[in-house]
């Protein structure tokens, strides 16, 4: 006698339950994705609402005046804006060429056995929290600059016309220049590893063709690799700039927190993030707190533009090529 195959019966109710779980799960992932959008929206709305009293009170003067006086409740953000921009410019001026060198070394120059360890070391350092860079800047870099570098700068460059004013005043150790240097060291591993990822996307065929035509190594890098990766490289630099502009801890330790726009790079100054970090918990009065939140709005606006441009440029690349961002 033949055994009949067991009949698999899936009840209607079971199928209905499966379908409703499907709906719930799908909805849950959808809600989570929407939550990401709401997060950005929430940050924008909350900050603007918090900073609105100050922005409405001072109007345009908030970004055009330098006075920051909690006693008379006059707040102008010119000094922090200036400090944020100048420290970031110093940082990028140093970090971009060095990062470019590191990326070239890692992709074109280093022997195979050296690429991985150095590459991994750079990537790991990109993950070291910024407070570490800040504490090192305060205890190690600032004293060295104060004792050895800044006196030299003042003696040799302080007297020259045009740029001389950048290097005048007493050597404090801390200040705009020091903050810029610490920022440079902090963004260096980050920018270098993005650039390396981008350079690695260049097809070997392109490079080999150039070598075949008799190009030197440098010509291959400058005339093949760099043009081919232009969008990605600029995107990586902009991401680094976004980091430098918004960085808090690495800067707060060494900037000196002085609400002043000084011609000299050696003078103490402040940045937007450093002002918020230093003063927020001690701010008394609604207008003071609101002014600090308004600073946050400005920072968010600046970094949003920079990061959005960076991401748009990096979008053209294959996402998988960018492991480090």
């Amino acid at each position: 006698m033949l055994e009949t195959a067991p009949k698999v019966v899936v009840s209607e109710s079971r199928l209905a339950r499966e379908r409703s779980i499907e709906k719930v799960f799908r909805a849950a992932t959808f809600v989570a994705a929407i939550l990401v959008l709401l997060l950005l929206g929430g940050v924008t709305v909350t900050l603007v609402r918090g900073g609105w009293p100050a922005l409405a009170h001072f109007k345009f003067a908030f970004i055009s005046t330098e006075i920051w006086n909690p006693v008379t409740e006059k707040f102008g953000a010119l000094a922090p804006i200036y400090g944020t921009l100048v420290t970031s410019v110093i940082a990028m001026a140093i970090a971009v060429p060095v990062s470019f060198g590191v990326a070239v070394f890692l992709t074109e120059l280093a022997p195979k056995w050296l690429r991985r360890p150095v590459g991994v070391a750079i990537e790991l350092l990109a993950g070291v929290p910024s407070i570490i860079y800040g504490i090192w800047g305060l205890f190690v870099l600032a004293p060295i600059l104060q004792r050895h570098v800044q006196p030299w700068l003042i003696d040799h460059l302080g007297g020259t016309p045009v740029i001389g004013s950048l290097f005048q005043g007493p050597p404090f150790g801390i200040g705009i220049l020091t903050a810029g240097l610490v920022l440079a060291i902090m963004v260096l591993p980050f920018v270098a590893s993005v650039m390396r990822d981008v350079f690695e996307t260049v097809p070997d065929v392109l490079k080999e063709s150039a070598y075949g035509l008799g190009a030197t190594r440098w010509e291959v890098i400058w005339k093949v690799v760099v043009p081919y990766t232009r969008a990605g490289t600029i995107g990586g630099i902009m991401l680094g700039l976004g980091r430098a502009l918004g960085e808090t801890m690495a800067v707060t330790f060494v900037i000196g927190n002085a609400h002043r726009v000084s011609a000299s790079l050696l003078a103490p100054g402040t940045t937007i993030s450093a002002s918020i970090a230093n003063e927020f918990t001690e701010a008394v009065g609604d207008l003071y707190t609101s002014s600090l939140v308004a600073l946050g709005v400005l920072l968010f606006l600046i970094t949003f533009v920079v990061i959005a441009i960076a991401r748009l440029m990096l979008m053209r690349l294959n996402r998988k090529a960018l492991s480090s961002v």
Partner: protein
Amino acid sequence: MNRLRVRKLTSSLALGFAGVATLIGLLCLGAILWTLIKNGIAGISIATFTEMTPPPGSAGGLLNAIYGSLLMTGIGLAIGAPVGILAGTYLAEYGRGNTLSTIVRFVNDVLLSAPSIIVGLFVYELLVVRMGHFSATAGAMALAVIAIPVTVRTTEDMLNLIPQGMKDASTALGVNHWRTVLGVVYPAARSGIITGLLLAIARISGETAPLLFTALNNQFWSTNLDAPMANLPVVIFQFALSPYADWQRLAWSGALMITVAILILSIVARSIAAAVKGGRK
């Protein structure tokens, strides 16, 4: 001939610069690690792990700060990770290719790079102002907000590595999409998702700026989520900037602890990720 020599010389000079740049970069970073190890180890003793943060001028440890950091990182991850994994699942599975997922992906990438102090201000306005005081809950929420974009990104990347054929096979058996995701996709991407979580922990455990005005700090032992809570980054910040030698020593020890923990996390995450990639070839 002369032109060729100029070209070759330019090439050597430029490449020499690249080598020197790498050397300078590595030296700077090496110097930071070396100072950290030298100053950090000098201050570490049993008391560092068993005693509370001291008042100025007396000995003590970092126990309450270590506890606070672990707790807030844990809660931050417990809130941020599920949201991040679900949103990543939407991007990789349900919303693949549609306009919404393109927008969400872009916004997520922006959040990933947004300054963390902004997140601190956001949570301050959202929670601290409403509750009327600083609290560990607010600190954990701030960390969760930072963990979400990291998890979304890694989850999506890892789910995209799963071969379509595996999912098709599951669908061909008449399995619902959700069962395919839970029973086939997640298990296949498990180590990848774990890597993402480890990276998220590494990212949030060193964050200082978002905790400054959410969790604040607490000199004493506290397990109350509704009150300010000590945490390593803020303790490092306050102690390093203080004029007291004892405090500065503890700051260095705390800094070393955080860095070592983060380096270990990243190395473990990296080796899991390497194993995943190796297995897929």
